């Protein structure tokens, strides 16, 4: 699964720590999600999408093999 968390973070000028506090996870978890090592739950994906004001589909895209 591909994601655009890092890009959206840059657009909204948020650090990993800022985003982590907004969605109540650790900064390390943001990092793990950005690198694609951890796929968040639907609830967390929706929370992130609402922080950025985009849809979940804009934030996460399926890859071949998913």
């Amino acid at each position, binding site marked *: 699964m591909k994601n655009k968390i890092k890009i959206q973070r840059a657009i909204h000028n948020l650090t*990993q720590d800022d985003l982590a506090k907004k969605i*109540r*996870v*650790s*900064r*390390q*978890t*943001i*990092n*793990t*999600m950005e*690198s694609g*090592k*951890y796929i*968040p*739950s639907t*609830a*967390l994906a929706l929370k992130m999408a609402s922080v950025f004001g985009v849809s979940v589909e804009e934030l996460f895209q399926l890859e071949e093999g998913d």
Partner: protein
Amino acid sequence: MKKLPLLPHAFQKLGFILFLPFLALGIASIGWDFEFPWLSYKVAHTFNQHIIDFDTQNLTDEIAAVGNIITMMLIAFSKEKTEDEAIQFFRLASLQWAVIVNYIVLIICILAIYGAGFLTVMMYNMFTILIIFNIRFRFVLFMHNKASV
């Protein structure tokens, strides 16, 4: 997602603090037959499956075993400082990993060790799932934290 029940973070510290004394007590009790003399009691135990017998037993090794299990459970099932769904995922994944590794090792021991030696294997096997789980989970958390520095 419905969160799994976990103890507050303070219990993890308590677990870490008490684990070493109980581990030392366990090793001393198994390795050198160490006993606290004031822990000898007359206890009931079943004898020949049906008859209940009373016997004087020293409870040092029992306390060490129970202490080791409880402290390892506290370390394993207390919340992390910032508990989130990624950490819950790592905890469950580590538990699965520990069960698989534990039973692979047990199968090897069943096939390779016989007689009285196997009783020793079973004794250690009471603790191995928790030991393997804790090592694996701490390692995964360490890598999780290290990766984002």
